């Protein structure tokens, strides 16, 4: 019998509802206690110790289950999972009854109580042993944890006993953890230390006779409350050598018990995922409705209580999909009657809930951590993600994925991860910016916890500005950009920071070759207020100074950044969040020129959940970015100067959302205020030849309003549309721009596995990055629109096909796009872009066109996971005005600096074992365009250089292969520390990828060309991360 058939049978059997939970025996004559999941069979050949409290074996005891006492039951207490398994006798298979119906059980003389079941605050799920039950109850909690560390752990302290069968070659073992507690007046307190324990023992007044207060409470509570619990348990009891053909299908019981148990082992995972065999009633059964109704709720992480975004919610009957949002909320429309709703998230145990839907209602749940990772995906993007949304060009990357992608110097790098996505390119290694679907680097709106990031990198692009320890995930919107976003023409990169844990203090320490980082998070008030702190710094500066015979000896290269977050849940409906980010960079490879740049972002956000399914959020904050250039020419210190530029931005955003049966309407407003300091130059010493002067500060306001709707137009149609009206007011000289921006995308689902999308976006941008250099440099200036510099207008049309194959294991996508822009800025030949009072005179307006096709195959399940993508794309610019012979390329289209037609990427992870995995990253792309000298000629008394047409040549193609070996800690969720190690090599083939080219000439002659390679060799790295 195949596994699928067994599962189907199990589902069928488990859905059979024999009646109420009353009585000792069920309809089949078997005690109700013995209905449940088959007990797990541990493979003790792989570990030392035992997960059971009592290593000597099952003990006879009694269990109160569902208000009824079952005496003389064989019990095993699994202290690792905090559940008991019971059987009638040695001839029966052990069954795990629902712990939530067990307030009390005994094993021999030992007594155990389920405090969380009795409603004791702060009690953990599971059982506490009652050591003394008097006016104060003295309790002991035992947890067993599976660890994997080499060494000799055969001690009472580690295992709880001396294991006579201890095998030294195994490094996995069950470690015992005992903690003592006292319970008085319903308050649970930890007993700290042996002396306190002994003192307490002497203080307790035991009852003269009979059970103590705790025991009585356990027996009484359930009597009162059990009728309120809608519980059904299946009428299945597994008995060896018994063939119950009335309830089970032919052949269900195998003759060979070992084979039966092995088969049941394979069922374990799916049965376990049945979530305690519970059936949920939604809506009032007294007033059942017809047709389809909306079921909604919140999904939370069982460990932290945090809402879980990106959880797939789908209905077996109708294949309707939903996805939890950032608040963990979902809404799904399903038919009235019996349904099975599935919840799937990468790192959590699958949940399959049986529901009986009578009418609209709520269904909240928590999801527990998935223990084993062998069969789970490395890649964050869930299977079928593309089928769940109408958005085209949406990519999500979780921090787990980011940390697995090899990068230079080994540190998880947000930007490097983004660069592995199709449609995302860069002009070169260690380049500060990136290009999305033919857009320039300044056309990407980069958000981090509501703040705008103007420079997303440190050290000229070697590291990203985002500390991976404080990031939850990254979302890149390449085409379908919701109406709530605006201000940039190409894309939105939304880096989501994580909130601190509300449950316990934890953190991490990362040590690498060039940088180290530390992060700490935890509750200030458990369940209410949490904090998050993260910091990074580099010691590359110290290392550079120790390079004796090198040009870098006098150089400087260092950075530091700090992240701060505070989250406060005022109540169930209101949350206040405060974020802060600070960074500084210093960079110099020669003593005469030093760059400094720094960022400061701060944001305050209030989220409110209103009546029904309405919500709003209000956020406000500041974004400051400044850079400084210190130039001290060798020729004369009297020509030394200091040049500063800065951009200061303040924002306020108000967003509303109302969800109905078929529509999720969002609307809101946003205001940005700018104070842009174009440049201030001043001498560095008195008497200098440099004259101090400043460009006037530019002030502007950018208010916008938007309205959007996500319309479930039918089972197969999803439409996402909206309009944003943006405006811009420059103060002096006064200039006003405004215009609508339309957003439209739609999805048609042929079936669960095949869908088509199409979309159209128009966008406007009122701020430009002025750069005529190849690489984005910190000294590039930003410029607001004014009467001479117009806003960039653009639109993009895209479509795609999405196909999930091989039983949901592989997602295929094929997307195509066409984009047009107007008023993109390019520079005139010989333009002066720094400290230029009449900057517009050196700039030209261009029209841009970009088109491309992207193919991607993504495998998210299995030992091997990852994605491969290929894209063919072109990006061209053309000057909009005819400036006669000065028109760039005579007014013909020319390649943009980031036009790289062919692009192939491969990101893969292979889980060798549960702890060891191999990661690889392969990147190939066409070399970017350049303009180069093609000859000499004599003119005007000297030799001159003749250049090619703009961007008509290319640097050599780019190819890079990275490999990494990841060693994860043991698969245990509750260890005090987890240390993971990554050994890797960046650029395994040692290819000398060209970053830029330049030429040197002597009076126009003796021309020599050079190409600069940032990483011209293999870069091995080692990274140690410690979680605590």
């Amino acid at each position, binding site marked *: 019998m195949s596994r699928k058939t067994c599962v189907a049978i199990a589902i069928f059997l488990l859905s059979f509802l024999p009646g109420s939970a009353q009585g000792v025996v069920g309809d089949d004559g078997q005690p109700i206690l013995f209905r449940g999941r088959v007990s797990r069979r541990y493979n003790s050949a792989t570990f030392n110790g035992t997960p059971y409290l009592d290593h000597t074996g099952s003990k006879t005891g009694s269990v109160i289950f569902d208000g009824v006492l079952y005496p003389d039951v064989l019990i095993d207490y699994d202290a690792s999972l905090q559940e008991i398994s019971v059987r009638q006798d040695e001839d029966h298979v052990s069954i795990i009854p629902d712990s939530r119906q067990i307030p009390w059980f005994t094993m021999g003389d030992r007594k155990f109580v389920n405090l969380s079941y009795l409603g004791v605050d702060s009690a953990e799920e599971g059982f506490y042993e009652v050591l003394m039950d008097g006016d104060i109850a003295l309790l002991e909690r035992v947890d067993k944890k599976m660890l994997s560390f080499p060494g000799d752990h055969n001690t009472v302290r580690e295992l709880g006993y001396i294991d006579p069968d201890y095998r030294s070659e195994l490094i996995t073992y069950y470690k015992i953890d005992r903690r003592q507690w006292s319970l008085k007046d319903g308050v649970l307190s930890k007993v700290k230390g042996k002396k306190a324990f002994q003192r307490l023992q002497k203080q307790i007044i035991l009852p003269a006779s009979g059970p103590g207060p705790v025991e009585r409470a356990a027996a009484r509570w359930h009597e009162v409350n059990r009728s309120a619990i809608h519980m059904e348990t299946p009428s299945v009891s597994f008995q060896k050598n018994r063939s119950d053909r009335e309830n089970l299908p032919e052949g269900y019981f195998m003759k060979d018990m070992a084979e039966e148990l092995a088969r049941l082992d394979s069922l374990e995972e799916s049965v376990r995922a049945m979530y305690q065999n519970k059936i949920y009633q939604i809506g009032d059964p007294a007033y059942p409705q017809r047709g389809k109704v909306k079921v909604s709720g919140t999904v939370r992480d069982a460990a932290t209580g945090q809402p879980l975004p990106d959880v797939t919610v789908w209905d077996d009957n109708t294949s309707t999909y939903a996805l939890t949002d950032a608040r963990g909320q979902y809404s799904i429309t399903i038919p009235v009657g019996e349904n099975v709703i599935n919840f799937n998230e990468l790192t959590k145990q699958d949940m399959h809930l049986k529901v009986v839907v009578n009418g609209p209602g709520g269904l909240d749940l928590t999801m527990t951590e998935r223990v084993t990772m062998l069969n789970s995906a490395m890649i964050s993007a869930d299977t079928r993600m593309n089928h769940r949304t109408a958005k085209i060009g949406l990519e999500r990357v979780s921090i787990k994925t980011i940390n697995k992608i090899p990068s230079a110097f080994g540190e998880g790098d947000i930007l490097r991860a983004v660069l592995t996505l199709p449609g995302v390119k860069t002009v070169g290694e260690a380049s500060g910016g990136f290009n999305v679907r033919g857009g320039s680097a300044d056309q990407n709106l980069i958000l981090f916890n509501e703040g705008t990031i103007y420079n997303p990198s440190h050290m000229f692009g070697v590291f990203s500005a985002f500390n991976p320890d404080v990031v939850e995930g990254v979302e890149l919107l390449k085409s379908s950009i919701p109406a709530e976003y605006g201000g940039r023409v190409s894309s939105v990169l939304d880096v989501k920071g994580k909130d601190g844990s509300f449950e316990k203090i934890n953190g991490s320490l990362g040590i690498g070759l060039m940088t180290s980082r530390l992060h700490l998070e935890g509750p200030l008030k458990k369940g209410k207020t949490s904090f998050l702190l993260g910091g990074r710094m580099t010691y590359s500066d110290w*290392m550079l100074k*120790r390079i004796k015979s090198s040009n870098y000896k006098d150089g400087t290269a260092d950075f530091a950044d700090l992240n701060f977050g505070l989250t406060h849940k005022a109540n169930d409906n209101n949350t206040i969040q405060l974020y802060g980010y600070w960074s500084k960079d210093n960079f110099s490879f020669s003593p005469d020129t030093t760059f400094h740049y720094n960022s400061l972002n701060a944001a305050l956000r209030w989220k409110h959940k209103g009546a029904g399914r309405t919500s709003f959020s209000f956020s406000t904050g500041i974004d400051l970015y400044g850079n400084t250039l210190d130039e001290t020419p060798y020729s004369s210190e009297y020509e030394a100067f200091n040049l500063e530029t800065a951009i200061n931005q303040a924002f306020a955003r108000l967003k509303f959302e109302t969800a109905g049966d078929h529509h999720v309407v969002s609307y809101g407003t946003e205001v940005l205020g700018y104070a842009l300091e174009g440049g201030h130059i001043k001498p560095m010493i008195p008497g200098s030849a440099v004259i101090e002067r400043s460009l006037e500060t530019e002030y502007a306001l950018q208010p916008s309003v938007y309205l959007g709707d996500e319309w479930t137009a039918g089972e197969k149609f999803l439409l996402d549309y909206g309009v944003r009206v943006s405006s811009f007011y420059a103060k002096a000289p006064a200039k006003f721009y405004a215009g609508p921006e339309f957003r439209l995308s739609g999805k048609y689902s042929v079936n669960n596995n095949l869908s088509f999308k199409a979309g159209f976006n128009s966008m406007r941008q009122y701020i430009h990055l002025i750069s005529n250099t*190849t690489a984005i440099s910190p000294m590039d200036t930003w410029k607001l629109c004014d009467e001479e510099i117009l806003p960039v207008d653009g639109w993009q049309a895209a479509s795609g096909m999405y196909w999930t194959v091989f039983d949901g294991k592989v997602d295929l996508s094929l997307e195509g796009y066409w984009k047009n822009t107007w008023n993109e800025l390019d520079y005139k030949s010989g333009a002066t872009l720094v400290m230029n009072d009449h900057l517009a005179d050196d700039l030209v307006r261009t029209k841009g066109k970009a088109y491309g096709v992207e193919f991607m195959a993504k495998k998210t399940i299995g030992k091997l996971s990852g994605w491969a993508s290929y894209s063919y794309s072109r990006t061209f610019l053309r000057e909009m005005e005819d400036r006669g012979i000065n028109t760039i390329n005579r007014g013909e289209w020319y390649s943009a600096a980031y036009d790289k037609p062919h692009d192939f990427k491969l990101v893969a992870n292979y889980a060798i074992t549960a702890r060891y995995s191999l990661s690889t990253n392969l990147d190939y792309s066409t070399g970017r365009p350049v303009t180069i000298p093609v000859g000499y000629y004599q003119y005007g*008394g000297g030799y001159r*250089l*003749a250049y090619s047409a703009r961007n008509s*040549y290319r640097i050599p193609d780019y190819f890079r292969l990275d490999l990494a070996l990841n060693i994860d800690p043991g698969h245990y969720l509750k260890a005090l520390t987890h240390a993971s190690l990554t050994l890797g090599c960046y650029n395994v083939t040692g290819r000398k990828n060209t970053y830029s080219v330049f030429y040197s000439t002597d009076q126009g002659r003796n*021309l020599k060309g050079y190409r600069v390679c940032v*990483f011209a060799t293999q*870069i091995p790295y080692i990274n140690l991360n410690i979680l605590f």
Partner: protein
Amino acid sequence: MKKILTLVIAAMSAVGCVYEFTPDIRPGDTKGLVVEGDILIGDVSTFTLSCIESLSGEESAPVRGWVWIEDDSGKEYHPDSSDPSNTFDIDMRSASPDRQYRLRIRLASPLTGSTFYSSEWREVQKAPVIDDLSYTWDDDIYADPYTHLWLSLSSTEGSGCFRWDYEEIWEFHAEFMAEYYYDTATQRVRSYEGRIPPLYYCWSYDNSHQAGLAIAKSTGGERISGYKFLDIDRRELRMQTLYFIKLQARNISEECYEYLHSIEVNSTSTGSLTQPDPSQIIGNIFSDDDPLEVVYGYIEASRVSEKSMYISDLFIPPAEPGGNLPPPVTLSGMLTPLSPAEAYMYDLRPKDSPDIWVNKKCVECTALGGTKIKPAFWPTPSE
């Protein structure tokens, strides 16, 4: 630990590098016609034809052809010679400033497949006014050893962009005046008998063509004032006796100025990580067959203003002699024996002093690059 650190640092410093970059240049990009010159109404216009030279140093075949000027009435102005050449002088002294002009070119051997080229039609820029041509110097030669030449230009109907050329003529003499000379024919020392040695005074000629592009753009209005365009070291021979400069200035269009400025910048600023990339500069000369073919050069039509001045040693304090002349020596101090092939001259001191022999550079002005060609207008009696 130290060893590990050293290895790590060494690895890090070696991760990035600079390598030679020699891309293959497309054949079409290495062929290009270069045309230099302007249409000067009321003067002689000079044009040269050449072509792009390969970066590898490969010699290009010389460019030869014919060049003429057309006006918008169809009248043509040709050089005197009808032979194909690469340098042309065209007399435009009788040309009208009220017409439009363009340059026409026909190549004897096409470079790229095109034979005929034409510049854009150009309106004649009016001649600017040379408000001032003057010079200044510092008494203290050690503080400032230069003579600075200044000019001021203005124009009522121009773009505020100017270009100028100049010719220089200077008279100088040898450092010493010899009284005797060694006659190699007779192998005897002979006297000049009080006459000025024939190679004592010389004249030299130069112009601005090798000095780079002389252009300037007004920052406000249509004038440039007090523009220092030339520095001459007072220890040079140019400042020794009498110096003459004739400046010719003309208005150029802003487009022409941008072109000339760009090619100057392009040749020095070749782009780097933090510098702007240079780009191709298109002139106003086009192939009749292929308008997209790149031709290097810009043809402007202008009228010329002229002004000249003299700088005399009578007004500028004399400077110490400059140059690297070998010192005078006595016969006994001569390191090498007299060679009959070298006509040493000597200056006879009083009877009780030994004879002084000097290298010919000290007494022959032609050895210093001068000529005996005296301009007809030269005001001094020197011969």
